[in-house]
Structure formats: C-alpha cells, structure tokens
C-alpha cells in the first residue's frame, strides 16, 4: 500500500512541477541550479542508504530507478501537450501551419530521446543511451530536411 501511495505522490509532484514550468513559460528553478541540486540529492540518498546498511550496488540501483521513474513521469507532460497540439492545429490555419507541426513533432522526438538518454544513464543501460544519443543527433537534420522539402515544394506549387 505504501508503495502505491509513494508512486502516486511522486508522479503527481514531478508532473505538477513540469506543468508549472510549462505554464510559466520559463524555468521555475534555473537548470544551472536544478541539475547540481538533483545530483547532490542523488549522492546524499546513496550515502544515506549505505550508512543504513544497504549494499552499495543495491543503493545506487534503487536511487537510479527512482530517478529514472521521475524522468519518465516528467516526459509525460510534453508528450500529452504535443498530442493536443497535433490534434488542435488543423488545415484551417493555412499552409504555414506545417512549420508549427514540424516543431511539435520535434518536441516528441526530443522528449523521447532525452528520456532514453537520462533514463538509460540512471538504470545503467548503455544501449539505451547509445540509441537515444544517435537519435538525438539525427533529430535536427530530420526537421530541417522536412521543412526544406515543404518550402521548395510549396514554392513550386505557387509558381504553377
């Protein structure tokens, strides 16, 4: 029972924090302060568990899995937002809505690859990190190629 309550509270807290960031339009806590703070909390939790008699590998695995779960909870909000955006922006907005959709699919790709990279780092799955990083490198080229193809085909249609 305690597990389920902790999961619900933890998930809701992470989702609410990400939603608060998105609603504010900027970072609530600057990344230059947030990321070192999270790393310090990670290390302190591992040290706390070791001092309470937990073996080192189990302690780091437990904290890493809880962190990876938090990263996946954090990825939920942008994914749902992207889905709403894809359903919301129809053809009635004119031909330039393509670029907004391109941005939205870029958000889907970026969130997916970042979750793969950081989730993989925290659960020690380097194959996941490698694929995520390769995908992360390819995303800008994909978006640029799509926008380029649409731009030139649209100019062509205008000339016709």
């Amino acid at each position: 029972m305690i597990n389920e309550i902790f999961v619900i509270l933890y998930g809701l807290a992470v989702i609410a924090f990400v939603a608060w960031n998105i609603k504010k339009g900027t970072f609530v806590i600057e990344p230059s302060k947030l990321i070192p703070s999270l790393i310090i909390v990670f290390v302190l939790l591992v040290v706390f568990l070791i001092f309470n008699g937990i073996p080192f590998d189990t302690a780091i695995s437990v904290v890493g899995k809880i962190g990876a779960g938090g990263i996946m909870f954090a990825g939920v909000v942008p994914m749902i937002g992207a889905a709403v955006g894809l359903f919301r922006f129809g053809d009635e907005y004119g031909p330039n809505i393509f670029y907004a959709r391109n941005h939205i699919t870029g958000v889907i790709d970026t969130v997916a690859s970042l979750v793969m990279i950081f989730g993989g780092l925290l659960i020690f799955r380097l194959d996941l990190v490698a694929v995520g990083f390769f995908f992360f490198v390819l995303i800008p080229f994909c978006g640029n190629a799509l926008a380029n193809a649409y731009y030139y085909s649209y100019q062509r249609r205008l000339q016709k």
Partner: protein
Amino acid sequence: MMDVALLTELADSVFFWGAFTFMIAVAIAGLGALRLALKGEAVTSLMGVSALTTAAGVSLYIIQIIFEVEFARDTAIALLVLGAVGTIIFARLFRMEEGE
C-alpha cells in the same frame, strides 16, 4: 537497518509505473502523429510517419525494459534509426523531385 527487499520493491514500482505512464503518453502522441500521417500532403504525411516511428520505437524499447521482451529491443533500434534516416532521405527526394 532498512529492509533491502522493501526498498527494491519500491524502486521497481516507481520505475514500472513511470515507464508505463510514459508509454501511455507516447501512445497518445502516436495517435496524433497517425492523424498527421493520414493528411493529404506528401511531406506532412512523411512528418507524421516519422513521429509515429519514434513513438513506436520508444514504446517498444520501454516494453523491452519493463516486460523483458528481448526481440522488442531490436525492432525498436531498427525503427528509431531507420525511421530518422529514411525521413531525411525521402525529404531530400521530395525536394529534388518537386523543387529543383
């Protein structure tokens, strides 16, 4: 002295439900991408299919991690890598056919 089994179970539970929730969110985004893929324009369809392969690849990778289905990882890697590379190639092709 803390209970190792209890802690491990808690961490597994958090990871499972985090991954499962993220998989549902990715599936919803995949539905949006599917809607985009069924639009009339060729480049728009290509963009939708690209996002759909991303959603499917990430979902399959998560399935491999939380349910330990080994073949899902190979399919996920193929979808993620070939989906991105194929999108770039087809976009170049569309540009050359229609623009130049």
